[in-house]
């Protein structure tokens, strides 16, 4: 197996005087889709921010594509989509994408390509402020695709999307992974876990399980990922 896309060792994060992550270790395989699952507030976003390198950490190492997270060369190789759409509401979809493409040094035709990938080819000239929440989230996602990054970190990319679109986006994620992109996707919807190769289950800042979906199901003997998650939580409380 090739070297992992992300290797985390002994990572700690303290926010507001409270430890959010404590000596967390994890590796993420290259060219796969890793689902980061867990309830709201369990530290998913903080962990993703560490991988992107925008989080101040309190110890430990995060190595991304062989470099320390947040190193300048990674700024072209890692794409990050925050949970809240971070695009300019007072610009059109095309103006947003064109600006970020210029910042990333991506070719101009990528603007139309990524708009099509997220199903917004009909809305490119609409103001972002006039779009629905789900459409705004897709503009934000399209922005991260512009530079064809090797690692895509997506924080809850499918919240508020209609089911058809969710399936289309997951198909797009699969295509990216097949082409060699590594995806780290957080979700609190367990049925999306079925679309992932590997799963990381988190609770209260701890990693309960990090393995392939099949291995998790086989090990716990559960019917699905949700059952496996519940078993791991109750098993831990009993122990």
């Amino acid at each position, binding site marked *: 197996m090739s070297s992992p896309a992300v290797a985390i060792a002994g990572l700690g994060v303290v926010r507001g005087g409270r430890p959010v992550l404590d000596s967390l270790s994890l590796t993420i395989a290259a060219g796969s889709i890793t689902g980061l699952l867990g309830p709201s507030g369990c530290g998913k976003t903080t962990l993703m921010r560490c991988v992107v390198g*925008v*989080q101040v950490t309190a110890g430990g190492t995060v190595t991304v594509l062989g470099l320390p997270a*947040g190193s300048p060369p990674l*700024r072209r190789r*890692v794409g990050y989509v925050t949970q809240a759409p*971070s695009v*300019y509401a007072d610009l059109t979809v095309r103006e947003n994408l064109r*600006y970020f493409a210029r*910042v990333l040094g991506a070719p101009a035709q990528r603007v139309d390509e990524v708009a099509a990938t997220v199903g917004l080819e009909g809305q490119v000239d609409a*103001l972002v402020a006039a779009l629905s929440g789900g459409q705004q989230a897709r503009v934000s996602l399209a922005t991260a695709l512009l530079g064809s990054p090797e690692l895509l970190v997506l924080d809850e990319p499918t919240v508020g999307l209609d089911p058809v679109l969710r399936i289309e986006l997951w198909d797009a994620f699969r295509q990216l992974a097949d082409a060699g992109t590594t995806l780290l996707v957080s979700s609190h919807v367990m049925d999306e876990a079925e679309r992932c190769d590997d799963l990381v289950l988190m609770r209260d800042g701890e990693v309960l399980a990090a393995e392939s979906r099949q291995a998790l199901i086989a090990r716990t003997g559960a019917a699905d990922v949700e059952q496996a998650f519940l078993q791991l939580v109750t098993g831990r409380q009993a122990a």
Partner: protein
Amino acid sequence: MSPQITLATALRVLSQLRRDPRTIAMLVIVPCVLVALLRYVFNGQPETFQRVGVPMVGIFPLVSMFLVTSIAMLRERTSGTLERLMTMPLAKLDLLAGYALAFAVVAVIQAATVSGVAIGLLDLHVAGSTALVVALAVLNALLGMALGLFLSAFAATEFQAVQFMPAFLLPQLLLCGILAPRDSMSDALRWLSDVLPMTYAYDALSRVAAGDGLGEVAVDVAVLVAAALASLALGAATLRRRTA
């Protein structure tokens, strides 16, 4: 730093402003109306209008760019776009210079319009060069932008950002010499005014109004440039790639 990214940022900021025609209209029209107001407030004392008119023309852009920039930068922070840009191959200077370039364009339009109205319609007399008044106004706009950029880091909400105007700019306006000569102030206030950038803006503008040229206001210009660069540097230091 990359000229393409700086230029792309400037164009992006201008596109955003273009979407807000009411703000552009206010940036250009409000100073004109205020100068006209000043002209008729001092209807019986035309010499007072002559004394304060030119400095006002040159100081408006400082105030408006301060406000526009602090709100714009606060929006970049709260909307997450700043964090996104910080994860991209964009130098902090690209962002700052992009804003500076865009607002300089607006400042030129603003300063040229206000000077045109004041000099052409309201008989404001400039003994020195009118072009120098416009140039000083643009420099003041850039100073206002740099101050706004820096101070916006200390505002958590737009309410707070707006309050920085009376908190930081109004005292400078009171102390710069436009209301009362600095010689007549208490010593402590005069010393304080020595370290406030608007004092040098007022000094330069009133000298040009009285007939001085670039040579005579070179020291003022140097102080204004230094103050703008210092607050840009402080502003850059508030742009963090990593946050808690």
